[in-house]
């Protein structure tokens, strides 16, 4: 089943430039989303060896609940964005769609792979195509931001390569399950772990590595900004989770908690002072990732569940906000806060719902995961809950700032929103409200994923035991 998904996706990327029709790429991404939904239904872990080789000798893709949940999220968001950018991108659209489907392949590959070097190769596909997309709009800001992102990104992915070669030197294998059974918690392994986590935390934009994001997002078109803030950060967090899963270190660790808290606060404060809408959303994405990293540092089942739930919600909200504001930028052509006022009630409702759920207002999905986060942090120590509440108060402040500047300012222009741009926004708004009102939908997706993360030997026996 996986080979058909990959065949369709690879064929789409290679044929869009030749056949010069973008619908192939959209159809391929949608097909991969539906097949991921189908994959999610069968309960047990499926293992697929490429070329028919058995796990430690060939490359293996392992579809346990966590990977399929992330693949579902990734392909879902990129299919919504593929539909949205059909109208949003006006020139050079074939190249845009080639790079978009390459990003989808990279994200899908990183989330489903069971081999550490294959993880690096797909992480590199993802990075190289996002370097190209960052420099898509080619004014001075984009070029400088793209070059900085390229330099920082390739240095950190080289750190990942050093970590991989250390692990190969120490254990002699490249397969996740084989590594997991051979790793001991002695010092050399900890240094390799540190390098790998540092490499992945760049994509997840944790504080020391977050500088590239605002400049990069300022230069990219809005749909790609949505991809960067929502799913490529989710992949960074997933990389950290998978590495800790291999090292069997999913327990209370104060390093992650402190990084999460710093990222949460710094991201929220910086978001408050921004003028450019895209930069503000970028910083807000950074602070949401701070929540997730803090909660993952708890290592408890409730912590992991709330972290994964917040990844899902953050992806939905950020994509909704970027697309809603993208419509504003598309119509007014400007990106600063005080120039994208619009007079259109349907858009007001959708972006309003997105902003409300960003700041965690009860009936919506942001509240559900924020509530889980507060409960998880209450178990560990009340101070963390207090900090989390302060950060979500700041989130409320800057989301109101966006709302007022877009819909309540005096100078608003009469607009008519094109259909293709508006349907994805409506779909995501309905999804946000649905998950907010019936949180059980999200839970029965995320509960098995959190359990899959916590017991490692089930994974090992599935892959190696056969």
């Amino acid at each position, binding site marked *: 089943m996986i080979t058909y998904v*990959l065949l369709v996706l*690879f064929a789409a990327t*290679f044929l869009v430039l030749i056949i010069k029709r973008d619908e192939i790429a959209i159809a391929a991404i949608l097909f991969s989303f539906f097949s991921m939904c189908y994959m999610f239904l069968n309960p047990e872990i499926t293992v697929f060896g490429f070329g028919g080789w058995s796990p430690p000798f060939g490359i293996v893709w392992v579809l346990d609940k966590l990977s399929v949940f992330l693949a579902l999220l990734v392909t879902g968001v990129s299919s919504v964005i593929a539909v949205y950018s059909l109208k949003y991108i006006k020139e050079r659209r074939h190249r845009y769609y080639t790079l978009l489907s390459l990003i989808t392949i990279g994200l899908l590959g990183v989330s489903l792979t069971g081999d550490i070097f294959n993880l690096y190769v797909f992480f590199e596909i993802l990075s190289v195509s996002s370097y190209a997309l960052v420099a898509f709009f080619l004014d001075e800001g984009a070029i400088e931001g793209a070059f900085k992102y390229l330099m920082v990104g390739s240095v950190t992915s080289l750190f990942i390569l050093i970590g991989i070669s250390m692990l190969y030197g120490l254990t002699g294998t490249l397969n996740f399950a084989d590594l997991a059974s051979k790793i001991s918690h002695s010092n050399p392994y900890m240094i390799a772990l540190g390098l790998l986590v540092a490499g992945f935390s760049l994509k997840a934009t944790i504080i020391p590595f977050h500088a590239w994001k605002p400049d990069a997002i300022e230069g990219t078109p809005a749909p790609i900004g949505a991809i960067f803030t929502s799913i490529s950060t989710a992949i960074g967090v997933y990389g950290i989770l998978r590495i800790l899963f291999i090292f069997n270190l999913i327990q209370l660790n104060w390093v992650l908690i402190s990084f999460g808290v710093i990222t949460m606060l710094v991201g929220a404060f910086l978001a408050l002072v921004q003028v450019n809408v895209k930069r503000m959303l970028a910083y807000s994405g950074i602070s949401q990732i701070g929540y997730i990293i803090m909660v993952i540092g708890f290592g408890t089942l409730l912590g992991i569940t709330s972290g994964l739930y917040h990844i899902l919600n953050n992806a939905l909200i950020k994509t909704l906000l970027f697309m809603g504001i993208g419509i504003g930028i598309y119509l007014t052509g400007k990106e600063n806060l005080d120039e994208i006022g619009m007079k259109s009630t349907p858009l007001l409702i959708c972006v309003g719902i997105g902003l409300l759920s960003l700041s965690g207002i009860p009936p919506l999905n942001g509240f559900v995961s924020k509530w889980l986060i507060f409960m998880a942090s209450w178990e560990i120590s009340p101070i963390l809950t207090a900090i989390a509440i302060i950060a979500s108060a700041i989130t409320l402040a800057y989301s109101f700032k966006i709302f007022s500047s877009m819909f309540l300012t005096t100078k608003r222009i009469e607009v008519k929103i094109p259909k293709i741009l508006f349907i994805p926004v409506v779909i995501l708004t309905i999804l946000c409200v649905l998950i907010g009102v019936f949180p059980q939908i999200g839970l029965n997706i995320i509960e098995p994923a959190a359990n899959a993360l916590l017991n490692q030997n089930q994974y090992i026996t599935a892959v190696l035991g056969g």
Partner: protein
Amino acid sequence: MDIIVRTIVKGLFPFIMLFGVYILLHGHLTPGGSFPGGVIIASGVALIAISFGLRKAERVIKEETAHIIEGLVALLLVLIVLFESFARYVLMPTGMVFELWSAPQVLFLNLAGGVMVSMALILIIFLLMKE
């Protein structure tokens, strides 16, 4: 570029190409394979582009054809690698070892990979040289 470089490049070009194809074809017997072979072929074309200018190099291979060849060969590569367990029946490793046909699958994939590498590099060289 001046006349000396042009005559030398004109003389060397066929041998560079021949050597690149040789490395490509014998990827499974001798060291080297799809990447060194592809790079040597691309460097031959780059020599032509540098010394004779882009118009002459376009006569060797145009940019659009490079795109099309790269897309199609990549598709072929995807088909074989993804369905490798079936492809192995067709491209069975024949009994004879150390001859050209000893590993048809590795040979075929080497060729496809080499063509893709050389087409991609030619594209990048042409694009970076465009004024």
